[in-house]
């Protein structure tokens, strides 16, 4: 039934450290549900969106690896990247899983999560649209991954059915991703007075979507590297071939980042927010834009031009950090910026622990699934057939 490789070892440094983090984080999660949000967070009526909301945006943005690569492979026909599709879709699926989990922690009454669909729909609300799109896209990604499970079970007929509809699923997934990636930005259109003018814009939905594009491509680059490092014996791709793919992805990321940078500069011009740039938060904005957008953009371009995969991977790290910083700036750092410092929100230590717990959980599940299913290699019975 199972056509995978040798049994992986249970006691490894990663497993031990991850196990300790998951145990400690699990206790914090229990405390959050036992004593409520006020016990585990520093959220208040002034600041109802905190670190967890920031990481919701981060998880969704970086989960764009799934739609970025499936679009390239199944819609644009870039078949050479096919080898990275399953790891990218799995990472995307886990990113959305983490989003849903952190949403459940953040909601006062998480057990009512189905209310927008069954009890009280709000079709004019951006949040309703996000809930609907995320639910549908999560299902789509699950369906994209089901051939992996069918291969493991040996259900050839079902696998064939799912593989035959993968292009349709990709188109549907791309459509849903464009909608909810931008709608997450649209949420912040409701807070023009609370969000700093350098980050607030009527084009903020576009900023969110465009940054998810290069965030997703950069994640694919890093996932490819991670898979090659950890499962080099399983991956049916040489290091040279992976380097070629990385260089190609670097070109895509450079173009996406250039477009994003241009839109952000236009935004400062159209909102006439130049005078905010030499304020403390403005300087932080410059760090984000120059250090984590413009610098990786040029490193990507240089890496592609000179064919340097190592440099492109370093740029991918910077670009991913750039997406994380952008989302945290919008949701936490530049939010409620006019409030006196002593009244401002600073996350509780339990909020940080919960985020580390979730990231570790995501990595552990990725490792488990890749160890036991045909993610980083073709299943022996279906060689090059998915």
């Amino acid at each position, binding site marked *: 039934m199972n056509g995978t490789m040798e049994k992986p070892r249970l006691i490894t440094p990663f497993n031990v450290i991850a196990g300790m983090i998951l145990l400690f984080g699990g206790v914090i999660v229990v405390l959050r549900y036992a004593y409520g949000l006020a016990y585990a967070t520093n959220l208040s009526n002034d600041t109802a969106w905190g670190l967890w909301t920031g990481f919701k945006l981060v998880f969704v943005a970086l989960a764009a690896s799934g739609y970025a690569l499936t679009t390239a492979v199944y819609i644009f026909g870039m078949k050479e990247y096919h080898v990275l599709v399953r790891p990218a879709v799995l990472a995307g699926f886990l990113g959305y899983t983490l989003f849903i989990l952190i949403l459940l922690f953040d909601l006062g009454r998480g057990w009512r999560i189905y209310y927008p669909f069954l009890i009280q729909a709000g079709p004019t609300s951006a949040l309703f649209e996000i809930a609907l799109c995320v639910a549908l896209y999560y299902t789509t990604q699950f369906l994209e991954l089901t051939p992996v499970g069918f291969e493991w079970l040996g259900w050839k007929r079902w696998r064939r059915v799912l593989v035959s509809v993968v292009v349709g699923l990709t188109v549907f997934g791309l459509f849903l991703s464009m909608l909810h990636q931008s709608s997450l930005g649209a949420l912040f259109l409701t807070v023009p007075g609370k969000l700093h003018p350098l980050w607030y814009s009527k084009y903020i939905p576009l900023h969110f979507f465009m940054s998810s594009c290069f965030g997703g491509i950069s994640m694919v680059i890093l996932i490819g590297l991670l898979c090659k490092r950890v499962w080099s014996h399983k991956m049916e791709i040489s290091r040279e071939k992976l380097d070629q793919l990385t260089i190609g992805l670097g070109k895509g990321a450079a173009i996406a980042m250039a477009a994003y940078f241009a839109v952000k500069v*236009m935004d400062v011009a159209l909102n006439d927010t130049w005078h905010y740039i030499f304020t403390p938060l403005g300087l932080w904005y410059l760090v984000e834009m120059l250090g984590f957008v413009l610098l990786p953009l040029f490193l990507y371009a240089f890496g592609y031009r000179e064919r340097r995969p190592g440099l492109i991977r370093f740029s991918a790290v910077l670009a991913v950090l750039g997406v994380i910083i952008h989302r945290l700036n919008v949701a936490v750092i530049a939010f409620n910026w006019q409030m006196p410092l002593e009244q401002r929100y600073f996350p509780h230590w339990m909020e940080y622990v919960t985020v580390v717990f979730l990231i570790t959980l995501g990595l552990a599940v990725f490792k488990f699934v890749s160890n036991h299913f045909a993610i980083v290699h073709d299943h022996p019975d279906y060689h090059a057939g998915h």
Partner: protein
Amino acid sequence: MYNVLHDFTIHVKTAGYLTAAVLLILIVPFWLYLTGGEKKRKK
């Protein structure tokens, strides 16, 4: 700095058009730089 909304709009529109023009012109050197390696290898 601005006496009426019209002054402000003129200022912002001018800055917007000038920035857009500069960015559009910059596309050319960016593209030439990015794809310069491809041309070099083809030769």
